[in-house]
């Protein structure tokens, strides 16, 4: 069942460092939602506030009307799963044991047959069945990521959040994973929220795209609405052409040596319009 998640006037700062404030977002429709944006803009931070990993400095997040800060970790975990980008295991267990961790919110002290079946099934879904009895630290980074996604699936949440789930995957598994996540979202009538840096992967598979720019939500909507040349330049300071492929925007970056990167780019800091004009003039002169 899809959850009704609302971020109301949400704000987070780490010490004196304000990440963003006055964020208002609603996640209440099933489907695959991608969060895009430059490094350090607070995408992961936003995920953390949804399942209480991080306490917001202002505003609140509600799940079906209840403030997450009033909910226990276990109650949240029954509904929301989180897949980190990388894992920092010091003492590795077997892959199967690692996936079984995802059953924690649902099971008691002992592992049941049902837990085992779900874990094995999720491993197979991520094509990691062959590695079930390997030690987690014997795997490659991409395999780690697939195991962690399997672990997230094993939690059987209503909202699955993944932090850059395809960052270490080969092309085949990037496409495979994104399709799987999209299909799961539609079949199980749930929300899958991912953070992504590959605009084309996000564009191809997402039902909704949210773009963060320094301190704000810059754009929110379907891939067609959101992924435009202007948005990409405003957010990433990179010039691009948009080509429609299968009805979705396909982004081609101007990445040649002659397309000089903006030296003043700072995590998509909002530039003064006058400065922007001056920059454009300079660029024209250079061409």
């Amino acid at each position, binding site marked *: 069942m899809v959850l009704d998640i609302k971020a109301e006037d949400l704000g987070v700062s780490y010490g004196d460092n304000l990440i963003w404030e006055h964020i208002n977002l609603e996640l209440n429709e099933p489907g695959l939602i991608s969060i895009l944006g430059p490094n350090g803009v607070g995408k992961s931070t936003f995920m*953390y506030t949804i*399942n*209480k*990993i991080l306490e917001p400095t202002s505003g609140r997040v509600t799940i079906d009307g209840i403030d997450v800060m009033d909910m*226990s*970790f*276990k*109650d*949240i*975990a*029954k509904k*929301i*799963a*989180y897949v*980190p980008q990388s*894992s*920092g*295991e*010091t*003492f*590795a*267990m*077997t892959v*199967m*044991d*690692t996936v079984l*961790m*995802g059953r*924690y*919110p649902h099971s008691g*002290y002992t592992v049941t*047959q049902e837990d*085992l*079946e779900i874990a*094995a*099934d999720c*491993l*197979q879904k991520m094509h990691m*069945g*062959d590695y*079930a*009895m390997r*030690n987690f*630290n*014997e795997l490659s980074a991409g395999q780690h990521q697939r195991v962690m996604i399997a672990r997230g699936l094993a*939690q059987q949440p209503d909202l699955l959040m993944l932090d850059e789930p395809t960052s270490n995957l080969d092309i085949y598994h990037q496409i495979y994973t994104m399709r799987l996540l999209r299909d799961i979202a539609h079949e199980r009538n749930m929300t899958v929220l991912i953070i992504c840096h590959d605009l084309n992967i996000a564009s191809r598979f997402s039902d909704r795209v949210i773009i963060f720019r320094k301190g704000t939500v810059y754009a929110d909507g379907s891939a067609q609405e959101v992924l435009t040349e202007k948005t990409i330049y405003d957010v990433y300071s990179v010039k691009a052409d948009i080509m429609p492929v299968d009805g979705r925007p396909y982004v081609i970056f101007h990445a040649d040596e002659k397309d000089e990167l903006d030296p003043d780019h700072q995590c998509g800091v909002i530039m003064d319009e006058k400065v922007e004009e001056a920059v454009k003039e300079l660029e024209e002169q250079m061409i």
Partner: protein
Amino acid sequence: MVKIKYKNKINNLGKKLRLSESSSKMVKHGTEGPVTNELIIKEYRAYKYAKVLMLLVVAVLCIVAFGIDIGLGAYSLSFEKVYSLIIDRLMDWNQTMDTDMRVVWELRMPRVLMGLFAGLGLAMAGAAMQSMMKNPLADPYTTGISSGAALGATMAITLGITIIQGSFGTVINAFVFALLPAGFIILLSVYRKPSPAMIILSGISLMYIFNAVQSYMMLVADPDAAATVYAWTIGTLNSAKWETMPFISFVAVVGGIVLMYMARILNTMNSGDAYSKSIGINVNRSRIIVLVTISLVAAGIVSFTGVIGFIGLVGPHIARIFVGSDNKVLIPAAGLMGAGLMLLADCVVQLVQPTLPIGIITSVIGGPVFMFLLIRQKKEVW
């Protein structure tokens, strides 16, 4: 020519690689063909049974070492004799004891039991501490417990300052002072929510402070008292008495049970705080529960035996080599391994020189054993 040569080489390499891949698959599953959920579950269960079996093997070895250890000494008794005497007494508790029975029950049993419980408690606490701190160098003393205990004991032995009067003065001093640094770190955990690295570093800085004060006390103390303190800091079982057994067994066993109950949470803490919270664990509360338990176990044991090093660090690692890092199996396995190592070390003490502090022997024996296992080790455990 050159091109053809390389082409052949590449082809051969490809063949080799494919061969090794298929052979490794065969080894893994016994049969070729697609992996099914049933097969995965079957293998997983077999793996867990094997680990439990290993646990039983270590337990049996402990029982054997226990019997041998009690038999050793100036008045030596055979293994069978020891166990027949023990069973005899257990069947008929109120019997009048002959010499053999007295040697077993009154002279040797307290010492050996103390070793058993000390090894059990320290190694279980060590395993839990390593998992929680995500650090293979952590041990039960990481929060400064050993230096606190040493300071308390030094105060009692050199200056005669004790919290209570009487024969337990040193023990109570050691216990209370051991809990000082641990208590400070637990308070820190409540208010500051520190990371594992911060806890370890606070523990180390507390350790240096306590060590400095203790060193000064030893410098100004008279040489005899300093020697006593020194022997105490190495750790010995020779002061074991029946009266102290209920307390020691209680902290080791109950502490162990609490830690085993926390095993699943310790497993997930290894994946980081953020992930642990996301699957429903109140990380901070769990960390405080584990810290309090470890502190009470370690302080309880250390205050009676002195600072027995190495068991709490290496017991868990040796167990890890055999049973892996799943804390549900690791914590009891580490406990049994710690107990076994202590009994083995005590056997050596009895054979070499019964007055030798056991702390010396645990390191002398445990060190090479661990080195050997470490070098021979092929699988990646850490």
